[in-house]
């Protein structure tokens, strides 16, 4: 199974490594050559330097034979467009897009894009953890006068 990961930052590189461990053939794309270092010394997958909006870069990474595409650059709108290009132009059904803005993530989910919003996840988790704390009132309530 072949996967393309667009954006090799903290998230993209970790996803690329994780998928490789599970037996996927992964090619990462990043504008910045130095991003290759994030994949570690023993990286055996592919790496293409370029912008995900560039169809030639996507082709060079092998998008035409890909089974899955993960889009996780640091720009929400870039991710939204690249995700739609992978899905609509290259017909990759399993296209997953990271969108930080919950509003846009929700909207594009209704438009048929598989979106993942870490911000919404963080909001849920943070408020759940607070709710699960056993909180003692810091001060005794003021006595009724």
């Amino acid at each position, binding site marked *: 199974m072949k996967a393309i990961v667009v954006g090799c930052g903290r998230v993209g590189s970790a996803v690329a490594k994780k998928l490789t461990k599970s037996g996927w053939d992964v090619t990462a794309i990043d504008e910045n050559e130095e991003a290759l270092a994030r994949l570690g010394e023993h990286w055996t997958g592919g790496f293409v330097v370029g912008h995900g*909006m*560039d*169809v030639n870069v996507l082709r060079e990474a092998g998008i035409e034979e890909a089974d899955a595409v993960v889009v996780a650059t640091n*720009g*929400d*709108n*870039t991710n*939204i*467009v690249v995700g*739609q*290009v992978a899905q*609509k*132009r290259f017909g990759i059904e399993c296209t997953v897009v990271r969108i930080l*803005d919950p*509003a*846009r993530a929700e*909207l594009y989910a209704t*438009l048929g894009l598989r979106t993942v919003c870490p911000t919404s996840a963080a909001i849920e988790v943070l408020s759940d953890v607070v709710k699960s704390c056993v909180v003692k009132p810091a001060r005794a309530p003021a006595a009724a006068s």
Partner: protein
Amino acid sequence: MFILVAGGGKVGSNLARALRRMGHEVTIAEQRRERFVQLEDEFEHAAILGDATEIFVLERAGIARPPDLVVAVTGDDEDNMVICQMARERYGAEKVIARVNDPRNEPHFDLLGISPTVSATQTIMALIEHEVPEHELIHLLELRKENLEIVEVQIDKSSPSAGKRVSGLNLPTGSRLISVMREGRAEIPDADTELQPGDQVLAILEPGKEDELRRVLLKK
């Protein structure tokens, strides 16, 4: 009309000014604070500070009404695409116009159905094509939605169509000659019109028929 302009750079601000002068109601969204301060001097409450791909910014700019026209002219193609998509899909804005900064992104705008688009590079290229005679078939207008285009052809002595009547041309299906300009006068050709060297011919055709049309009118 109520028009929302996303992007307050040179293009956006000049556009907003011209539209206001024409009597339209305009809001203009700009995310760079420095630039916004200048816009605010001129447009007052109609200038909105913020990233127009953020829904709350769009809403402050009046997207929910929705505008009669949304013009996305930021310097970032992804932003322009997302603004147009959100305006249309979420708020039901019927008309959008997007600026293409990098002509290589044009296919992405097409893919997402964002039309019409305006690209300075493309416009200048079209003008150059018009000026440079070696280009045999000049694209004058593309009607993307209608899937038609209008081209201009110059007939010369060596053209196989010179001296022939329109009815004898064997024009490709899906194409039609709409005007023949001769000695500064344009006329609408019919089947009996004879083409002559020096004629400037306008044709309307389906994209993809250019080569066939070129063969019939010009040369192999």
